[in-house]
């Protein structure tokens, strides 16, 4: 049985919305009955992408972050988008331990976490325009067998 569901959310670039974004995705994805580990992986990846939009994408608060979540069969596609600063050099940004904000005690491991916990991530970014991160993960034990 195949199955489709979809949701899209926009919220302000306030740090208290980081946990809110995780709850929203976890709740939406729970209809597929993910394992505890899969759910933790997804929540962590979402947390990374949303945090990046808040602290790197936008300098000031109260700009809008967009999060989309799509369920196609057993696969989850999550897109996090901001219309902020954009990334100069995506290849450099994706390297483990690279961070442009060491003064904030950022570890530079955000992209590595997303890549490890999801099956695939696609980064589209344009300087001065914004950043869109698409993350895809296929659940192993999902309810909706194809």
């Amino acid at each position, binding site marked *: 049985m195949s199955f489709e569901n979809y949701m899209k959310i926009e919220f302000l670039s306030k740090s*208290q919305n*980081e*946990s809110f974004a995780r709850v929203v995705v976890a709740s939406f994805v729970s209809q597929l009955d993910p394992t505890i580990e899969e759910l933790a992986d997804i*929540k*962590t990846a979402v947390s990374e992408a949303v*945090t990046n939009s808040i602290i790197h994408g936008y300098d000031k608060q109260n700009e809008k972050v967009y999060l989309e979540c799509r369920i196609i069969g057993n696969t989850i596609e999550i897109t996090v988008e901001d219309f902020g600063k954009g990334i100069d050099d995506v290849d450099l940004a994706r390297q483990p331990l690279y961070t442009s904000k060491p003064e904030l005690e950022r*570890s530079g*491991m*955000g992209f590595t*976490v997303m890549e490890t916990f999801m099956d695939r991530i696609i980064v589209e970014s344009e300087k001065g325009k914004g950043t869109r991160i698409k993350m895809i993960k296929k659940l192993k034990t999902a309810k909706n067998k194809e």
Partner: protein
Amino acid sequence: MQLKFEVLNNTLVVLLNGELDHHSAEEVREEIDKKIESQNIKNLVFDLTNMRFMDSSGIGVVIGRYKKINKLGGKVGVANLNPHVDKIFQMAGIYKIICKFDTKEEALANL
């Protein structure tokens, strides 16, 4: 995030209660640093028994405290990790500088 502190023989034990992300990291950082500075602290143990979530912001918090404690000639340990947090720490190569222990007691006995 709720923090509980305990000082045992120059070792500060921090029990983290809640979710450690970018939002909570600042408060966690400040509270721990205040304790390190105000008490006569040498070593630091993060007890993660009740930490329900952590992302890469947690790596920054742990490494930041490591740098501080290292200057004071002390050591940092983490105890009671769930597999998910362990995976994140491993990814970041944190165990090159910080020791992992199964329990708080083990950390206190071995730091």
